[in-house]
């Protein structure tokens, strides 16, 4: 079972995220980058499947040069090798363009059976790239998985729904996305961190991967940010100390606002 894990580098979730006023893209330069959190679960699931069924785990990231830090983390968790698509022509690429670029990059990786992604990135928060990838590749979409089981070429997932889960089945090759509930990601060990340094990392330009430049970058994107503004801060409210009547005071407030 050869698996490709899609990992995105995102601004640290503790940092205040901003758009760059010049081109209205995410300011990635001035904040620390971290691995998109759910993608750690995707890496973990890939490693567990590899441990159970054999095969190789390849990390795939599209991102600027500094995204290599995130790739190293995935390698130190135990992934075998990595592909990094990095090219200034990709700056400003929207979700649709990202799915095109990732699909092309997957074309350079031989013999994969599963692509595993996270369910959502914490910067764009769109939850669309995995479904787009399945469509681009023409393979089954097994997304929002809280459990994945593999039996030969059959993959079965529990797809998280509003009210519980659906059991969904398909054959490999397929695209899986995982939700947080699926596992508990491991921490890289010291040995893992050392080993990561010598694991193979292939860097691809747009040309190397055969990405159509008319579909990516700010100019190629089918969606654009027209303008943006910081939300005005909320006006500060009334804070009372509970003197034995806190619940009553809160009820009074709710009633004054017609919630009761």
């Amino acid at each position, binding site marked *: 079972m050869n698996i490709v894990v899609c990992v995105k580098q995102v601004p640290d*979730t*503790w940092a205040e*995220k901003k*758009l760059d006023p010049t081109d209205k893209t995410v300011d990635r330069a001035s904040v620390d980058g971290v691995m998109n*959190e759910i993608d750690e679960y995707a890496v973990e699931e890939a490693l567990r499947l590899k441990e159970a069924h054999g095969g190789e785990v390849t990390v795939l990231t599209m991102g600027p040069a500094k995204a290599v830090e995130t790739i190293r983390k995935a390698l130190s968790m135990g992934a075998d090798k990595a592909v990094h698509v990095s090219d200034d022509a990709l700056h400003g690429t929207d*979700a*649709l363009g990202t*799915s095109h670029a990732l699909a092309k990059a997957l074309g350079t990786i031989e013999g994969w059976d599963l692509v595993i992604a996270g369910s959502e990135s*914490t*910067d764009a*928060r*769109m*939850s*669309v*790239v*995995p*479904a787009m990838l*399945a469509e681009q590749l023409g*393979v*089954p*979409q097994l*997304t*929002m998985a809280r459990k994945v089981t593999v039996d030969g070429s059959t993959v*079965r997932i529990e797809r*998280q*729904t509003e*009210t*519980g*889960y*659906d*059991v969904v*089945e398909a*054959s490999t090759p*397929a695209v899986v996305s995982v*939700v*947080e509930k699926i596992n508990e990601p491991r921490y890289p060990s010291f040995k893992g961190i050392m080993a990561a340094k010598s694991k193979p990392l292939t860097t691809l330009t747009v040309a190397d991967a055969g990405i159509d430049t008319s579909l990516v970058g700010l100019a190629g994107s*089918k*969606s*654009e940010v*027209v303008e*943006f*503004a*910081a939300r005005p801060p*909320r006006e500060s*409210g*009334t*804070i*009372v*100390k*509970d003197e034995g*009547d*806190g*619940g*009553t005071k*809160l009820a009074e*407030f*709710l009633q004054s*606002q017609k*919630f*009761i």
Partner: protein
Amino acid sequence: MAEILVLVEHADGTPKKVTLEMLTKARALGEPSAVFVGRNYAAAKERLAEYGAQKVYVAEGDEYADHVVAPAAEVLAHLVAEKSPAAVFVASSAEGKEIAARTAVKTSSGVLTDAVDVAEGFVATQNVFGGATVVQSRAQGTPIVCLRPNSTAPVAEAGPAAEEQVSLTLSDSAKLAKVVDRVVEEKGGRPDLTEASIVVSGGRGLGGAEHFALIEGLADSLGAAVGASRAATDAGWYPHQNQVGQTGKTVSPQLYMAIGISGAIQHRAGMQTSKTIVAVNKDPEAPIFSIADFGVVGDLFNVVPQLTEEIAKRKG
């Protein structure tokens, strides 16, 4: 006027509130045509007419319901090619966004998720970075706009809802991922977290799963949905589906009540666009108070029972 496709989000045929919201929004910008995909169209029919659907394109049948996401995208892409609508509206739910995603690939169009408003020219307003930034964005091709539940008040206005069967044979590639079982874990009863007009959430301050009964009791007294902070879901006190925040659900109700929640940036990212926010926390320094319209500094085990009782009294 321009035709706008509105994908009906429904539970076994019954349209969800967000569908009525999308029809209302679409009427302001053009002529809505509802698109029904799945089972039990009979349950949807009347509502769609009541909320002004000019037409309803119907793709009914098991094969549409029993495969993941791809069939609905195929129906939408087919209609985009055949009818050349001005835009497509889809609910910004987990499944809605995935349907929009595949439709975008099929039609080479831009997709805008989590829109809280759509204006002339299909310019969408999105609250990004957890509501810290407000963005206006636009999509090319046939704009595919995902509308966030609860962002428009649904207004009824009768329409003909003229039915037209979708003439499409689903391709094999739309049937690759098959739903073999559906499991319902929670009992209904409470409203959907993302659609509820009131949400009551509990956090680490609860101290244990058994204390979530306090949150549920308060929620039920107000007809509210129950949410939880990540600290509470990670500890296994409440299901992950109920997690509010950066890695959970984003909610924007009329009233959000944070009980025993500190209000870390990742939690605020999921709730700070709520209209009114109240907080109960024993730590006066908790960041949640900086965004609360009303806050009580105190022990939730004293404040919440008193509050629930007061609500019952006042409701009489």
